[in-house]
C-alpha cells in the first residue's frame, strides 16, 4: 500500500516538474518588452514544484513508518477483552510478534493460544492504518504540488530557493565523512576510557608483558603491557618495511622522472600505481606461504636461534614491497615539482645528470620525499592483513628479524574475533590499541601534510 503511494508521489512530482516548467516557459516565451524579465529558468520553476510535491509527502511516509506499527499494535490489543490481555511488557511483545508473523505468512501457528484469534484483527488494523497513511501521503503530494505550481510567476525567485536546497544537500554530503570519523573517535574514546578504568594507562603504555588471553576479567593486572606490540609494529612497519620501500621507491622515482623515455614512463608508471590496488590479503598469502618458509630455513641453516616460520622479516619485506609504489609516486611528484630551472642550472655548469640528481634535485625535493615516507609509515603501521597472516601472535620484545613478533593491528583482530564479551578488559583492550593507532597515524599524517605543504609553498 505504502509502496504504491511512494510511486504515486514520485509520479506526481515528475508531473509537477513538467507542469511547472511548461508554465514557466510559456510566460518567458510570450514576454513583451514591458513585462518583467523572469527571475528563474523554467527548469528552476519545475524543480521547485517537484520539491514541494515530493518532500512533504516523503516526510509523511517516513513518519507513518514510525507511527503505523504502534497504532496497529494498540488496535490489536484493544480488540482483546481486558481480562485476557497479557500483563507484562514482554508477553505483550511476544504475542504481537507472533501475530505479525502469522499474518504475513512467515509462520503457520503460534505457541501462544491467543495469537491465532488476533490475526484477523491485525490484518484489519494494518490495512486501515497503512491505507490512511498512503492516502495522506498522496494528498500531501497533490496539495504540495498545487501550492508549488501556484507559485510559478515570472517574478518568483524559484532559482534562489532550489539552489539553496541544493547547497544544503551538498553541505550535508561533505559532513557525512567527517561526522562518521568523529563518531568513530568518540566510540574509541568511550571504550578506551572503560578499559583504562580496569587497567592502568601506565601499565598499558609502558608494560612489557602482553598476554590478554591468559587474563580473566578479574585478574587483569600484568597482562596488558603493550610495549611488545608497539615495538613489533614499529619493527615491521617503520623499520623493515621502510628499509625496503625507501631505497627502491626512491630509485624507481628517479628512474621514472629522470632517465625513463616518455614511452617507458607512460606504461611503467601506471603499472606501478596499479600495484597499490592489489588487495593486501594477497600480499599476506605471499608473505606467509612463499617468503616466510625459505627465510626460516635460511635462518636455521646459519644458526640463528628463535627463527620462526612467522617472522618479522617476512611480513616486513612484503609490506615494504607493497609500499614501494606509494613511496615512488610521492617521490616522483616531489622530484617532478622541482623547477626545470634548477636542473638546467646544474647541467649548464657541467654537472652530470647523476650529480644533478644527487646534489640538486633530491635535496630540493627532500621535504616532499620525507612527507611521502611519513605517509607511507602511517600506512604501514595501520596495515593489517599482511601482519595477521605472516607476523605471528607471540608478543616478543626482540630485535631478531627472524623471530615472530606481533603488532597492534594483529592483536586487535585477535581480541575482536570469536566469542567476545564487551565488558571484559580483553575486548576493551582492542579499543585502546585502536585509539593509540589512530592517534599515531593521525599525528604522522598531520606532520607529513604540513611538511609537504611547506615545501610546495617554497616553489610557488
Amino acid at each position, binding site marked *: 500500500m505504502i509502496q504504491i503511494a511512494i510511486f504515486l508521489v514520485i509520479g506526481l512530482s515528475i508531473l509537477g516538474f513538467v507542469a511547472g516548467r511548461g508554465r514557466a516557459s510559456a510566460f518567458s516565451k510570450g514576454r513583451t518588452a514591458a513585462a518583467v524579465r523572469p527571475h528563474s529558468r523554467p527548469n528552476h520553476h519545475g524543480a521547485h514544484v517537484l520539491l514541494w510535491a515530493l518532500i512533504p509527502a516523503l516526510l509523511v511516509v517516513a513518519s507513518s513508518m514510525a507511527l503505523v506499527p504502534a497504532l496497529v499494535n494498540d488496535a490489536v490489543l484493544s480488540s482483546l477483552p481486558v481480562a485476557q490481555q497479557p500483563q507484562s511488557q514482554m508477553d505483550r511483545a511476544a504475542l504481537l510478534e507472533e501475530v505479525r508473523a502469522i499474518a504475513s505468512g512467515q509462520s503457520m501457528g503460534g505457541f501462544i493460544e491467543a495469537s491465532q484469534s488476533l490475526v484477523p484483527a491485525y490484518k484489519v488494523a494494518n490495512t486501515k492504518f497503512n491505507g490512511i497513511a498512503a492516502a495522506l501521503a498522496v494528498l500531501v503530494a497533490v496539495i504540495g504540488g498545487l501550492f508549488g505550481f501556484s507559485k510559478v510567476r515570472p517574478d518568483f525567485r524559484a532559482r534562489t530557493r532550489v539552489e539553496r536546497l541544493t547547497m544544503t544537500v551538498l553541505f550535508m554530503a561533505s559532513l557525512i565523512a567527517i561526522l562518521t570519523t568523529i563518531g568513530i573517535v568518540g566510540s574509541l574514546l568511550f571504550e578506551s576510557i572503560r578499559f583504562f578504568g580496569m587497567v592502568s594507562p601506565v601499565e598499558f603504555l609502558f608494560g612489557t608483558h602482553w598476554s590478554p588471553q591468559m587474563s580473566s576479567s578479574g585478574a587483569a593486572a600484568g597482562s596488558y603491557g603493550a610495549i611488545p606490540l608497539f615495538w613489533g609494529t614499529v619493527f615491521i612497519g617503520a623499520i623493515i618495511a621502510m628499509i625496503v620501500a625507501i631505497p627502491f621507491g626512491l630509485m624507481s622515482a628517479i628512474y621514472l622522472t629522470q632517465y625513463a*623515455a*616518455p614511452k617507458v614512463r607512460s606504461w611503467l608508471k601506471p603499472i606501478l600505481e596499479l600495484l597499490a590496488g592489489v588487495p593486501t590479503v594477497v600480499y599476506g598469502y605471499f608473505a606467509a606461504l612463499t617468503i616466510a618458509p625459505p627465510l626460516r630455513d635460511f635462518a636455521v641453516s646459519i644458526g640463528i636461534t628463535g627463527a620462526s616460520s612467522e617472522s618479522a622479516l617476512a611480513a616486513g619485506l612484503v609490506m615494504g614491497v607493497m609500499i614501494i609504489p606509494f613511496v615512488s609516486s610521492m617521490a616522483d611528484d616531489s622530484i617532478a615539482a622541482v*623547477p626545470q*630551472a*634548477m*636542473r*638546467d*642550472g*646544474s*647541467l*649548464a*655548469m*657541467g*654537472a*652530470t645528470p647523476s*650529480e644533478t640528481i644527487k*646534489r*640538486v634535485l633530491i*635535496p*630540493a625535493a627532500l621535504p616532499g620525499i620525507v612527507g611521502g615516507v611519513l605517509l607511507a609509515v602511517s600506512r604501514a603501521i595501520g596495515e593489517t592483513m599482511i601482519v595477521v597472516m605472516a607476523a605471528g601472535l607471540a608478543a616478543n620484545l626482540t630485535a631478531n628479524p627472524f623471530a615472530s613478533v606481533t603488532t597492534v593491528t594483529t592483536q586487535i583482530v585477535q581480541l575482536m574475533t570469536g566469542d567476545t564479551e564487551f565488558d571484559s578488559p580483553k575486548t576493551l583492550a582492542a579499543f585502546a590499541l585502536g585509539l593509540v593507532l589512530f592517534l599515531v597515524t593521525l599525528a604522522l599524517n598531520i606532520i607529513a601534510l604540513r611538511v609537504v605543504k611547506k615545501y610546495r609553498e*617554497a616553489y610557488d
Partner: protein
Amino acid sequence: MSNTESASTLKMTARNVDIFYGEKQAINNVSIDVSMEHVTAFIGPSGCGKSTFLRTLNRMNDTISSARVTGDIRLDGHDIYAPDMDVVQLRARVGMVFQKPNPFPKSIYENIAYGPRIHGLATGKSEMDEIVEKSLRRAGLWDEVKDRLADSGTALSGGQQQRLCIARAIAVDPEVILMDEPCSALDPIATAKIEELIHELRGRYAMVIVTHNMQQAARVSQRTAFFHLGTLVEYGETSDIFTNPREEKTKDYITGRYG
C-alpha cells in the same frame, strides 16, 4: 665584419646551423662568430629563435628530446656536436645564465662551491673559500653577502640572485658565458648592475647575451645579431646595426615599427 677580427680571438663559430623541434624548423641557416674581445647580443621579436640558438651553443637543447641540430658549431675549432665531444665538459667551458634567476635551494656559499666541487677545482677548504670569494667579487656581490654566506641563496633579492647565478657560472672558470635575457625579471637598478658587470667581465670571458631590450643590446654589446622568424637578418657591429642598418627589417625593428 668577422674577417676583420684576428683568428686568435675567435672563440666560437657557427656555420649554416639549422635547428628543428620535431618537424618544425626553429632556426634556418644561421652563421655567427663569438669572439673573446666582444660581447655579442642577439636581438629580435619573441619567438624568433634567438634563445633556441643560444641554447645550442652549450647543447642545453639536448635535454629536449625532439630537438635536432644540423650544421657546424665549433669551440676553439672543435665541433661541439662531434661524437668525441663530451657534453659535460662542454658545459663546464661554456656556462649559462638563465632568464629567471635559479639559485639552488642551498646556502650562498654552497651555490658557488657546487660547480668547483663537482669539477674538483679546489683541494681544500681554504682553496674553496678563495674560489667563492673571487667569484663573488667578480660578480660584484661579495660586499653585499660576505657576512651571510651561510644564508640561503633563495633569500636574496632578484638582482642579487641573478648576480649569484653569474658568480656561480664564473666559479667553474668557463671560457664562454651565455646569458638568456638575464635582466628580464629584474628592476632597472638591478639591471644596471648586471650591465655594469658584463662590461667588467668583457675580455676575460667570451659573452653572448640574448635580450629583447634594444637599448640594453646597444649599451652592453659590440656585436649584434638580429633574428627574425628563425633566420639571421643582420649581424655586425652594434653601432652600425643601430645607427645604420643595412636591412629594412632591422631598421623597422629597432625603430619600433613592429616586434
